[in-house]
Every structure is written in structure tokens, then in C-alpha cells.
């Protein structure tokens, strides 16, 4: 099966120890996690993991179901790049001297829609957000001028659907809760 980069979003209750439960599913199936970001979602109390991994569709669909099987996981989904809007953030530290001496750096910043966050006597920090390739490209272009430090975040992504994809599920579940209470 064809390998691709998949983005997995996992919605969970806010419980300790969930990260471990999510990551071991990838480990057991020998799939490397490329990036991982945890944040709150638009729904109060619901956390969201955004994970990217390169694998085939058969494997990722099984991983998603095995993640969902964990008790405190609400729902998990997987997407290919065309189904989501996504972004990464990178920070580059360069010496202020290169920034001042050479207008190449400034040109690159403009070209890549990056911005300068901080300038001190010794170093300057450039921030860029974009897709992996754009970040890689700026990295390559800045490299000859000297990069002192570099860091890139994991991917964050939202779907093209209007609400959080878990919303419909939560509504269903609430109906079930009412049902279970009527039975009392």
C-alpha cells in the first residue's frame, strides 16, 4: 500500500496519562510519529491531539480505531493533506551581524512571509509559519548565512468541516446519556 503523510486528530477527555495511551498504539504498529501537538479544542473540557505520521491507509485506519478503543478517548480521525488546513511554526536564530551586513536575509524574510521577532546586539530571531516544505526551503536558504539555533513545531490542523468534527458525536452521546438516565 502507498505510504503518505497522514494527520490524525484525537479528541479526548482531560485525563492524565492519555498521551502515553495514544503514542503506544503507534509504537506497537511500528509507525514513527513525525510530529505531535496537544491543545484544547473549541469544546470546553475536550483536548485535541494532532499527530502526523507517514504510513499507508490500512495501517492508519487501524491505528485510529485502536486509539478510539481507549476508554477516555472520545473520537479519532485521520486525514490526508487535501482534507485539512494546516500550519507549522519555525523559529530561526541568526547572528544580528549577518542580518545587518547582508540584505539577503531580509529578502528571504519578505519572500517567505516570515517576520523578525527580536533583535539584540548578538542575535536575531526570525519566525515563520507555513507548510513543512516552506520551512525547509527557508532553512536551506538561510543555512549559508549561518543558523545558530532552529526549531520547528508540530503540525496544527483544522478540518474543512465547519465545527469540530467531534461535535456530532458528542450530541449523539448526550442523547445516549439521557437514555441511560431514563432507565434508572
Amino acid at each position, binding site marked *: 500500500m502507498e505510504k503518505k503523510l497522514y494527520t490524525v486528530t484525537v479528541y479526548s477527555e482531560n485525563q492524565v496519562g492519555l498521551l502515553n*495511551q495514544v503514542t503506544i498504539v503507534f509504537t506497537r504498529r511500528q509507525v514513527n510519529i513525525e510530529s505531535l501537538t496537544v491543545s484544547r479544542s473549541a469544546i470546553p473540557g475536550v483536548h485535541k491531539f494532532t499527530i502526523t505520521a507517514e504510513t499507508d491507509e490500512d495501517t492508519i485506519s487501524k491505528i485510529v480505531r485502536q486509539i478510539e478503543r481507549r476508554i477516555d478517548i472520545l473520537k479519532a480521525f485521520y486525514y490526508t493533506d487535501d482534507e485539512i488546513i494546516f500550519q507549522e511554526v519555525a523559529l530561526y536564530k541568526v547572528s544580528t551581524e549577518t542580518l545587518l551586513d547582508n540584505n539577503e536575509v531580509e529578502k528571504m524574510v519578505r519572500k517567505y512571509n516570515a517576520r523578525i521577532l527580536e533583535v539584540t546586539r548578538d542575535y536575531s530571531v526570525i519566525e515563520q509559519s507555513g507548510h513543512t516544505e516552506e520551512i525547509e526551503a527557508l532553512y536551506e536558504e538561510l543555512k549559508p548565512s549561518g543558523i545558530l539555533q532552529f526549531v520547528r513545531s508540530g503540525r496544527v490542523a483544522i478540518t474543512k468541516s465547519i465545527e469540530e468534527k467531534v461535535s456530532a458525536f458528542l450530541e449523539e452521546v448526550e442523547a445516549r*446519556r439521557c437514555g441511560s438516565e431514563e432507565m434508572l
Partner: protein
Amino acid sequence: MISGAEALMRCFKEEKVDTIFGYPGGFIIPAFDALYSYQDVFKFILTRHEQGAIHAAQGYARVSGKPGLVMVTSGPAATNIVTGAADAMMDSTPLVIITGQSTVAQLGTDSFQETDVIGITQPVTKWSYQVRRAEDLPWAVARAFYIAREGRPGPVVLDISKDAQVQMLDFHYEPCRFIRSYQPYPQPDTSAMREAAALINAAERPLAVVGQGVQLGHAIQELYAFLEKADIPAASTLMGLSIMDENYPLNMGMVGMHGNVAPNRQTNACDVLIAIGMRFSDRVTGNIQSYAPQAKIIHLDIDPSEINKNVKVDVAIVADVKTSLPALTALVNKAKHQDWIASFAPYRQQEYDEVISKDLHPQHTALSMAEVLKCLSDTSGEKATLVADVGQNQMISARYFSASPQRQFIASGGLGTMGFGFPAAIGAALGNPEAETYAVCGDGGIQMTIQELGTILQYQMPVKLIILNNSYLGMVRQWQELFWQERYSSTPMVNPDFVKIAQAYGIAAASVEKRENLQAAIQEMVAHQGPYLLEVKVEQHGLVYPMIPAGSPISHIILGKDKA
């Protein structure tokens, strides 16, 4: 206000617990202290090792259908239960496991007997949770029982810090009925149901493969109704052996590595395969690519993550079989499949001629395991539980003990845990006291948990222990003989005098080696009131046939030496 430890006991009472298996220690002393005042409410079974406690709880749960409760201390006790937790996870056995834990302030500091119980048990449990405050205890216990029991059952760990046991709380118990992130009973999809019925109605050679899910879902009658209406022959997995009586006309036997020839062969001849509450274990499918490639496959299971996990299926019905089976039965047509059902018979005859008759009437003087199991099966009562250990003894028990809903066969299926059989039988005897309880173990496996003789001594439990002594780690020896050029690396065993060991525990015991004495020895054991150990010295070089070598297509059935 009451202490957390006292609250724990009240929670158990609310959950209608009657039996607890365990072992005390430092960080669980408060809970055991509370237990002291509840001796007339709960029967507490002090095993001789925590592994014994958890396997006993598994045996209890498997026969009673209720969650088994285990209570042990922290650190080494908690790590001692890991094997049983993993086993229960594989075999979907409901357990609530309470481990003591250090004080909250000591967590993460490598303090005495502190281990990362959550980290260790999370991968092998359905849910694992640390309770740090007494006020969280009722909520956590209610949730633990709910999760262990509902949907596809499984083991749950509650790691309770000492603080939570000694702090005071206002006790109020609310059983758990709902967890927003857990849907234990998914509703069957009606269009999938119609598709499945259409496939079944068009089938000329349908075959059902029945797993433990039918038993866990209490859907045995529903299964019979389904099979009978559409006249569908059925095979069972090792875990599903107790569902259909051997004489049930539609029962075609057991599938899998050491299963019967007919259902294994016909798996690759059927046109529609209906998998009911089973999970396509590799021990059942052999090589996946050549598993029923010709068949349309319908999968009924409660766990969505089992669908397409091992075998790609054509129709999936994700629901409790208790609901999905009757709904499906309503949609299928009455049918007759006489010729198809009759086509199993020649394979059955072939297996009888080439394997079973030789097993039961060996040419050599040494007893075969099959003779022993056949005799035990015929001599034991209408209500009986047979708990097998792991190895050749297990496969022969599965093959020659005639199981049924009244005569349960229990074994460690998914994990294949040696040492499971004897303690699990102790729990089974408590969980179903009406049934005679037999543990069938190998000389290897019994020595992994033989210390539990102390438990049956202390509580005078009427567990009958049969040791099939072949002086070998027989199943490994079999693989070495067949696939590793007879290089018997570390499989011969020098064994103690098992009868003397039993005598030291004051347990009646006998040893038998000769064919002419076998029946009398078994009759005596069956008739004996109270615990009993029977050692049967069997042939050293016995082989379990039929056998489908690991990873081979299921059509590659070996019926005996030279007959591959």
C-alpha cells in the same frame, strides 16, 4: 465521615462483590484493615503469590460472568499481577485489580515499593487509573466496575495511594451507568444487517465460526436459533468451545492450529463465512492471505477495532451479539444445507482414522494424554469445569474433553500463559461451586504456580488437579521434533515427586502410569470429597495432531509423522 479504606469496602458491597482474591502488604494495609470488619460480607482468598490471585480471579470471572476482584499491595505485588492482566486483556475477562501505592508525596521518587503501575499496566488493561484522594474513590471504583464489565469485558487497574486509603470522606455511592467517551454497546447498522442477510440467503455453503463473544454476550440460545433457522454448520474457536455441545448436530468442531480437520478444511471451501464474537487470531487463521480467500466474510463483533484488523471482511455488524444475532435471524430465510453439512463427514472420519483412534488406542504401552482426557471426560459429572494449562495438555484437553454450557472448558487462549490453569481452577471452583472443578496441567506449567496447593489446603477447596507428566516441556519439544531437527534444547524436565508434594500439603494424591489402572484412578479422584492431586505419567514423546504449522495456510494440515 469514613476512611477511604472503609469506603472501598462499601463500594465493593454496592457492586455486590462476594469474593476477593489477593495478598496484603505495606501500602494496602489500610484496605486490608477495613476488610477485617467485612469478613462476613466477602470471602477473601489469600493465595500464595499475586499471580495466583489474579489467575484465580480470572477463573472466577470466566465461570460466573462477574468481574473478578483482586487486591494486592504496591511494587512487586503490582508487577506480579501484570501477566494476569495481560492474559485477561487478551481473553476479554472482566477484572477489577486494586493495587496499593505509596503516598502521593513519595510518587516519582523511587521510594520503597513504588513502581509506575499506571505506566506498566496501561498497555495491558482496558483502563488503568491512579486514585490519589479519598474523595475520588467511589467515582473511580464505580467506573472501574462499569468498564471491566460492560461492552467487551477486560481488566481494569485502580492504583490507590496510601493517602486515599487513610483520608476521610463523605461517602456517597453512585453506580456508573454512562461514560461519555465509551460506547460499550454500539447499535448495529441496519443496512449492514440487510447486506449480511442477503449474503446468507444466497449462500450455498455457509459456515459460522463462533468465539467467546457469544458466551460473554449470553447469546447461546440466540446463536442456536440463528444456526437452526438457516441450517448453518458451525465451528468454534478454542475460546468458544463451551458454547455448543459436542453432539449438537450443527457443531462441526474446533478450528485452529490443533483444531479439527473438517472445519479447518471447510473454511477454505465455504462461500460465506460468518464470524460471530471471534477475532481472527493467527492461531485460527494461519497464513492470512490463504484464509478463506474464496468466501464472503461477515463479522459480528462488539469491538469496532476488531473489524478488518486481521482479516478484511465484506460486511461488519458492530454490536453485542445478543442484539445483532436475533435481528439477523429475523432477516434470514429458512434454509437447508444438507449436502454441504454432509460434506464435513468424510473429513471427520479421516481425522478419526488417522489421529483420534491412534490417540485413544496407542500401540505402545505408555499412556497417551488423549486416553486420560477421554476417561476424565467420560467419568466427570454433568456439571463440570475443566481448566487447562498451556501446552500439549491444553490442546489435548480442548480436543478430548467434551465441553458444553454445563461443562465449561477454560484456558488461557490469547496469551498462552503457563501457570494459569491451577490457580484459575481455584477461582472457577469458587465462581461455580455447583460444578466439579478439574485443573489439567503439564509437569512444566504446574510448577509455575504449584505454590497454590497452599491455597486449596487453607480453604479446603474441592479442586482436582491432574498433572499430565511427560517429563518434557512437551509442546516446545513437539516443535523441536517437527521443525528444529530434534534438537531438544532445554525441554527435558527433571521433576519432583508430585505425590509427596501433595502429601506435604495434606492433600490426597495418587500417581498412575499403567493403562489398566487409569480408569480406577480417575474414578477415585472424581469421587473424592475435597482437593486431590492425580499425577498421570504419560508417554514422553507424544505429539498433538492435527497440526497446522504456525504461519502456514490452514489447508496445510499435518495428521501425523510422514503424512505431511
